[in-house]
C-alpha cells in the first residue's frame, strides 16, 4: 500500500486531470526566482549583505556596454549547444557530451585556422567555422554509430568522449601544436588575424557567433514545427511505438539528432577559439557544454526558451566572476547557482502533472463485516 496510508502526512500529491498549462510556462521563472532567493540566503549566511551581493552578482556585471557584450558573448556558446541539445532531447536522444563535441570543434576549427589560415585568405572564417561544425559532428558520430549499430547508451558514450576530447586537446597543446615561441606554455600559436572573429561593436568582445546563434534559434524553431524531419524526431521522442508504427526510422532520428547537436556544439567551440580566446589552450570552455544541458531544460526545450535561459545562465557566470573578485567568494558560487536552478526546475516540473492537496484525516472506516 502507498506509504501515505500509514503516515499522517497532511499533504498529498495528486495527479492533475490534465497537465497544467500555467505551470508549463511558469515552472522556469519560478525556478529562477527560487534560485535567486536561495542565493541571497547563502550570501546572508556567509555574512555578506544580501542586497549588496545581489547588486554585485546581477547588476554590476551588466551595467556597462562592455558588460552587456560579455553577457551576450558568454550566452553564445550556451545558446549554440543548448539549441542542438533541445532538439536532441525532444527526440529522446540523450547527448550529454556537448562539452566534448565543443572541444573537438575547437580543435578542428582551430587546427584549420593555425595551419591553413594564411593560405585561405578571405575564406578563412567560413572555413574554420565549417571545420568546427564538422569536428563536433564527427565526435557525435561515435555515439550515433554505436547506438544505432550496437544499441549502446549514447549517454555514457558521449559523456566519456568528453574526457577523451579534453585529453586530446591537452596533448596537442602540450605537444605537437605547442607554440615554439610560447615560453613552454601549453598553448598554440595565436590564430592569424584574418581568422579571428571581429567584435560586433567597439568596446565589446561579442562576435558574429551570437548572430549565428540567434539565426539558428529561428531555424531550429522552423525545423521543429514545419519540417517532416522535425516532426519525425518529435514523434520518436514522444512515442517510440507510434514512430515504429508509422515507419519512422529510429536510426535516422538518432543520427540526425546527434549530427545537429554535435554540429552546434562544434560551432560553439570554434567561436570561442576564434573569438575571445584567439588560440588553442588546454581548457577552452568552463563547462559550457554541461551548463547547456541545464539551459536546454530551463528553456523547456523550446528555441525561444533556450535563448532566454542562455542569457540567464550567462548572467550566472558573469555574476560568479564578479562575486569572486568583489566579495571574495569562491568561484564555485556559480556552480551553486546552476545546481540550485536545475534542482528547483526539476521540482517545479513535477507540478505540471501533479498538484499538492491537503488531506483531512478520514475517521476510521467501520470494520468490514461479512
Amino acid at each position, binding site marked *: 500500500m502507498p506509504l501515505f496510508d500509514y503516515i499522517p502526512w497532511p499533504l498529498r500529491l495528486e495527479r492533475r*486531470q490534465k497537465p497544467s498549462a500555467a505551470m508549463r510556462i511558469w515552472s522556469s521563472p519560478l525556478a529562477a526566482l527560487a534560485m535567486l532567493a536561495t542565493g541571497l540566503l547563502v550570501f546572508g549566511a556567509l555574512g555578506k549583505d544580501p542586497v549588496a551581493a545581489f547588486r554585485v552578482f546581477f547588476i554590476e556585471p551588466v551595467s556597462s556596454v562592455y558588460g552587456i557584450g560579455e553577457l551576450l558573448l558568454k550566452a553564445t556558446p550556451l545558446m549554440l549547444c543548448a539549441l542542438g541539445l533541445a532538439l536532441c532531447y525532444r527526440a529522446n536522444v540523450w547527448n550529454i557530451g556537448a562539452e566534448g563535441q565543443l572541444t573537438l570543434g575547437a580543435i578542428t576549427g582551430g587546427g584549420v585556422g593555425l595551419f591553413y589560415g594564411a593560405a585561405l585568405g578571405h575564406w578563412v572564417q567560413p572555413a574554420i567555422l565549417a571545420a568546427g561544425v564538422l569536428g563536433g559532428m564527427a565526435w557525435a558520430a561515435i555515439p550515433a554509430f554505436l547506438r544505432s549499430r550496437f544499441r549502446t547508451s549514447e549517454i555514457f558514450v558521449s559523456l566519456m568522449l568528453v574526457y577523451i576530447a579534453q585529453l586530446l586537446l591537452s596533448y596537442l597543446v602540450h605537444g605537437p601544436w605547442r607554440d615554439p615561441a610560447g615560453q613552454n606554455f601549453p598553448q598554440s600559436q595565436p590564430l592569424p588575424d584574418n581568422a579571428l572573429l571581429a567584435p560586433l561593436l567597439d568596446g565589446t568582445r561579442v562576435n558574429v557567433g551570437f548572430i549565428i546563434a540567434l539565426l539558428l534559434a529561428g531555424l531550429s524553431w522552423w525545423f521543429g514545427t514545419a519540417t*517532416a524531419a522535425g516532426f519525425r524526431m518529435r514523434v520518436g521522442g514522444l*512515442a517510440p511505438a507510434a514512430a*515504429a*508504427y508509422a*515507419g*519512422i526510422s529510429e536510426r535516422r532520428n538518432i543520427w540526425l539528432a546527434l549530427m545537429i547537436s554535435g554540429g552546434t556544439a562544434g560551432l560553439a567551440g570554434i567561436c570561442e577559439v576564434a573569438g575571445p580566446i584567439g588560440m588553442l589552450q588546454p581548457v577552452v570552455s568552463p563547462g559550457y557544454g554541461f551548463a547547456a544541458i541545464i539551459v536546454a531544460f530551463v528553456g523547456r526545450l523550446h528555441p525561444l526558451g533556450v535563448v532566454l535561459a542562455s542569457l540567464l545562465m550567462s548572467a550566472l557566470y558573469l555574476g560568479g566572476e564578479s562575486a569572486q573578485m568583489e566579495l571574495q567568494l569562491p568561484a564555485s558560487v556559480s556552480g551553486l547557482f546552476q545546481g540550485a536552478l536545475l534542482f528547483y526546475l526539476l521540482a517545479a516540473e513535477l507540478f505540471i502533472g501533479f498538484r499538492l492537496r491537503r488531506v483531512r484525516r478520514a475517521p476510521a472506516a467501520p470494520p*468490514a463485516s461479512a
Partner: protein
Amino acid sequence: MNRLSSPTPPRLALHGISKRYAGVVANDRIDLQVAAGEIHALLGENGAGKSTLMKIVYGVTHPDEGSIEWQGMPVVIRSPAQARRLGIGMVFQHFSIFETLTVAENIALALNDRLPAAALAARIDEVSQRYGLPVDPQRLTHGMSVGERQRVEIVRCLLQSPRLLIMDEPTSVLTPQAVRTLFDTLRRLAGEGVSILYISHKLDEIRELCDVATILRNGRVSGTAIPREQSNTSLARMMVGTELKECRLEPRQPGPIRLELTNLSLGTEDPFGTGLRQINLRVHAGQIVGIAGVSGNGQKELLAAISGERLCEQRGAVRLCGQDVARLNPAQRRHLGLRFVPEERLGRGAVPGMSLSDNCVLTGATAGLVRHGLVRSGAARAFARATIAEFAVKCDGELAPADSLSGGNLQKFIVGREIRLVPTVMLVAQPTWGVDVGASLLIRQALIDLRDAGAAVLVISEDLDELFAICDCLAVLAGGRLSDAVPRAGLALETVGVWMTGDFQAAGPAAGVAHAAV
C-alpha cells in the same frame, strides 16, 4: 431519503450521487442499490458516467453530493485502500499493472495484508485454478497481452475475498469457454453472497448473467430493468436513446488476392511471446477475413510481420498486391496501400501529446500531408476536421491532443484516419475493444463499407461476436499456428472455441468448404 424497510439492508446503496468536472456533469443524482448476492448490471455508453460512478464507489474520486451506505451504514469512501478494507474489489478496464514486476509482486502490491511470497504464490495458483484463470505467479507482466493482464487483475481481486466485486467489461478478451467459466465463477460467488456490479455493453451476456440492470445515459439513470425480461433492442434503446441498426454483410464475390502470407515463420523478440510457425493466409479484395484467438498466441508477432514493424528474413513470405514486401519497412508498405489500426491506440496508433491534426501527419504522408519535406499543416487540419466530422468523433476540435479523447472516440478517429487514407489492404487489431455500442457499430459498418468498396480487410480480434458479425472468412491463431480460413457461414461457434485451444484437427463441418472457397 426513503430507504427500503427490508430486514437486511442492501450491500451497497447510493443516494443522489452527483459529480461534476469542469463544465461536465458526469453523474447527476444517481440512486443505485445492490442487494447481497445480486449480480447487478451497469449499462451505458462511453461517457454515460459508469466509470465515474464506479470510481466513486471504489474511493478513487469523491462525490460532490449524495451519500453512500455500506450494508446499511453510512460511509465516506476516501481511498481505494479503504474500499478494499470495506470489502469492495474492482477489476479495472485499463489495468493498473507495474510492468517490471511479476504477477505475484503485482498482486502483493494491491493486498492490504502482507503475505509471505510462497504462500501468496500458492494462493494465486489456488484461486486461478478454482476460477479457471490460468496465470503463472512468477511471470513478468511486461510482455503480457491485454487478455493475460486482465486475468491477473481478476485473480488479484478474488484473492481479497471481496463482498462486492466491480467488474469493468471483464469478458471482452476471453474465449467463449473462458466466458462460460467466468460466468460460473461469478454465479458461484453470488451464491456465496458476494454482490457483483457488472459493467458491460454486451447485451447478450447481461441478459444471461445479471439479475438487475441499471441503465445510465448522459450521467443520469435512464431506467432499471430485469435483463432476462428484455430484448437486446429494448436494452439498447434505453442505453442509446434511439434505435440501433444492425450491421449487414451482403455476400460478395471476392476479387484478386491482395495480402498473402506464405509459410511465414518468425521468432519472437519477447521472452514470453509466441513465435509464428508456418502461417499461410490469403486475403482477397472485397473480403473481410477475421483471425480469432486469445491474445498472446502470436497476434502481436503476426501484426508486426504484416505491418512491417518487424522484417522477415524469408523472401516472399509476405506479399502485398502480389509484390514481395518481406523486407520493406512500414512506411514503404504504406506506399503500396497497406493501412493499419493497431491494438494500442494511445502511444502506437496515436501520439498522446500531439494534436489530432499532427496525428494525421503521422501516417498521412501518402495523402499529401507532407510535401518536399515540409509538413502541410493546413492540409493536415482539413484532413483531421473531415475525419472528425465523417466518423462523429467527439472532441474539442482538430487541435485537441490525442490523449484528451475517450478510448472509443480515439479509436473512431484512428479507424477513420486510416480509412480516409484509402487502403488497398486494411489491417485492424481489436477494432472495438472497450468501445461503446454506438461507436462499435459505426466502426464495424465502416469496415464493411471498406470491403464493399473493394479493399481487402484483415481483422484480428478476441471478440467472436464481432468476427461472426463482420467477417466473410474466419481463421484461428493458437500457439503461433494459424488454422485454415473458413467461410463464416456454416461455422459453429463451438468449433472456433475448440480451435482456440490449438486443436485444429477437431474440424467442424465447414472444414471441407474452406478449401473449396480458397
